[in-house]
C-alpha cells in the first residue's frame, strides 16, 4: 500500500511531464543543492547550452523569489542566527517539447494588484521592449525597495520563449496564492 501509493503519485507526476518538483521551505542551500542536480540532469538530457542556461536561470530567479517574498514563513532562532524559512512550490516539466518552470507561493492580498499589474505589463512587451526594461531595472533602485516585479521577473521574461503566464487565487482574508509559469 505504502509503495503503491507513492508509486502512483510518482506515475501521476511523470504522466504530466514533470521532471522535477519541490514543495516545502526554500532556503539558499536548498537552491544550491537542487540547482546542482538540475544542471546534471540537463546535461544528461543533452539539452543545448542555451536552453540549459535559460532553464537554470529561470529556476534561480523563481527560487530566489520564493526565498525573498513568500508570505508563508516561519522564523527559527538558534544561538547563532535567526533563520527565516519561506514556503513555496516549484516544478520543472516538459510540455509540447518545451521545458517549463512553474512556481507558486503565498503573497499578501494587498500586494496582488501591484504584482498583477506589473506582470500584466510585462506580458504585453515584445523581446526588444523586455531588454530595454531589463536595463532600466538594472539602473533602478535595488530589490528591497522595489519589492515584487523587480529585475527578477524581467529576467524570467527575457529568457522565456513564450509570454509568461501568471495567476492568483484567494486563500483567506489576507492571503492569495501566486503562480508563475515560464516556457523555455
Amino acid at each position, binding site marked *: 500500500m505504502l509503495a503503491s501509493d507513492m508509486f502512483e503519485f510518482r506515475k501521476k507526476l511523470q504522466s504530466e511531464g514533470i521532471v522535477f518538483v519541490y514543495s516545502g521551505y526554500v532556503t*539558499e542551500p536548498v537552491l*544550491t543543492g537542487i*540547482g*546542482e542536480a538540475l544542471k546534471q540532469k540537463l546535461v544528461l538530457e543533452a539539452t*543545448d*547550452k*542555451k536552453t540549459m*542556461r*535559460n532553464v*537554470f*536561470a529561470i529556476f*534561480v*530567479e523563481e527560487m*530566489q523569489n520564493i526565498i525573498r517574498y513568500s508570505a508563508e514563513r516561519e522564523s527559527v532562532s538558534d544561538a547563532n542566527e535567526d533563520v527565516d524559512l519561506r514556503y513555496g512550490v516549484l516544478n520543472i516539466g516538459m510540455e509540447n517539447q518545451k521545458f517549463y518552470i512553474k512556481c507558486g507561493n503565498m503573497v499578501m492580498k494587498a500586494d496582488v494588484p501591484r504584482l498583477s499589474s506589473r506582470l500584466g505589463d510585462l506580458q504585453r512587451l515584445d523581446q526588444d521592449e523586455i*531588454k530595454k526594461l*531589463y*536595463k532600466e*531595472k*538594472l*539602473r533602478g533602485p*535595488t*530589490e528591497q525597495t522595489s519589492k515584487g516585479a*523587480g*529585475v*527578477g521577473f*524581467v*529576467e524570467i521574461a*527575457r*529568457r522565456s520563449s513564450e509570454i509568461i503566464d501568471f495567476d492568483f487565487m484567494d486563500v483567506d482574508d489576507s492571503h492569495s496564492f501566486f503562480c508563475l509559469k515560464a516556457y523555455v
Partner: protein
Amino acid sequence: MENIKIEATDRSPEVDFDFANNTFVLRGESYPEDVTAFYGELIGNLESHLEALDGAEVQFTFELIYFNSSTAKVLMGLFDMLDEAAGDGLSVVISWIYDEEDDTMEELGEEFAEDLENATFNMKKMQT
C-alpha cells in the same frame, strides 16, 4: 593594495584582482546568496584603487558563464565605475568573454557596453 584571489564556488566566480598590474578578472558563475556580501568590499577596493591611479592602463576581463539578475545589477554598476575611471584619464579596456553557444551572454555584454563613453570594450568568444 594587496592582490585579491578568490577561488570559484558553485555560486560565485573566481576573482583575480591584481592591483600591481592593474588587471582584474571575474570568471565563472555568479548567483551568490548575498551579492552585496560577495561584491561589496571587492568593488569598494577597486574603486579606491582606481581613484588613486594616475594615467595607468587598466584591464578588466569578464569571463562569465551565467549570472543572476542581482549580479547583473552589480555588473552594471561596475561598468559605470570603470567608464568613469576612463573619463578621469585612465586607459581602461573591458573584455567580455562569452560562450559562443550562448547568445544571451553575448547580448548582455552588448547591452552593458552600450552606455560606455570612455572605456574601450571588446568581446571574444570562449572556445568550448
